[in-house]
């Protein structure tokens, strides 16, 4: 265990804010706030189904700009993963989240909160392959790729 890196308070409070955000979205729109699904819908726009997706993404981007000014240490690039690994990671995440209908938000938070069996299986699966991937990168490449 790495106790010096352990940040339980901000993790719990940040998580609670995420829970509030998806709850707010649910009471307003009746929809699951899954980020990969919201972004994916921007790529095949349907009438009346575009502006809100753009607004959601704009909200995330605004936070990125503000965070870079007030808390740059919280929004960083990886020190160990290089450009090729990051580009490949992006493609795999993009394709995988569309194929599997969700990511950490849609399956991991929204789905598990309502005890969806599909989301429980998806979350168990992506946690397992994530752990496996990080372990392989550490063992085979010393953690840098």
């Amino acid at each position: 265990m790495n106790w010096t890196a352990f940040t339980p308070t901000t993790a719990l409070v940040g998580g609670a804010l995420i829970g509030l955000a998806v709850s707010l979205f649910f009471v307003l729109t009746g929809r699951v706030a899954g980020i990969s699904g919201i972004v994916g819908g921007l790529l095949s726009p349907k009438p009346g189904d575009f502006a809100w997706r753009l607004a959601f993404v704009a909200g995330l981007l605004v936070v990125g700009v503000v965070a870079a000014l007030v808390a740059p240490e919280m929004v960083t690039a990886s020190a160990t993963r290089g450009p090729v690994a990051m580009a490949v990671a992006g493609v795999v995440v993009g394709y995988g989240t569309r194929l599997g209908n969700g990511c950490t938000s849609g399956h991991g938070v929204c789905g598990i909160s309502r005890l969806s069996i599909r989301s429980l299986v998806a979350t168990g699966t992506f946690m397992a392959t994530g752990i496996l991937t990080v372990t392989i990168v550490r063992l085979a490449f010393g953690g840098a790729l």
Partner: protein
Amino acid sequence: MKNLMNLLSPANSTTRARAFVVGAGVTGILFGVGLVLSGMTKPDKVIGFLDMFGGAWDPSLGLVMVGAIAVHAVLFRVILRRKSPLLDAKFHVPTRTDIDPRLVAGAALFGIGWGLGGVCPGPGLIGATSLASTLLLFVGGLVAGMALFQATNKA
């Protein structure tokens, strides 16, 4: 609350559509603040969380899920007691319960990419605003991967 309910009447459909967009924007901001505060926008912290067997495991990000689910599991049930959401005629809760190969394969791929880069979609978009080249490459890849899926799979 009464005023919000009136938004559902057809005469107010434009107002409702605008409120929908504003609500989505506010959700994005709140969600983003949660992601940044939680540590999810630090790829090396994500990697430290997923690296359970390296001897220096940082379990913090597991608590992000705990916090988010604790809040939403309760509020989801409270909200569902309503007949409809505030800005739509009905709830759109996914109803599928089948475990198909696409679900498992897609989740497996997502986990591989998450472990490879230490970034999931939301934090990728947030981090890319710093214009760091690796995060821009991640988001470029993310969009390309989604486009590839849509080009090769009929909706």
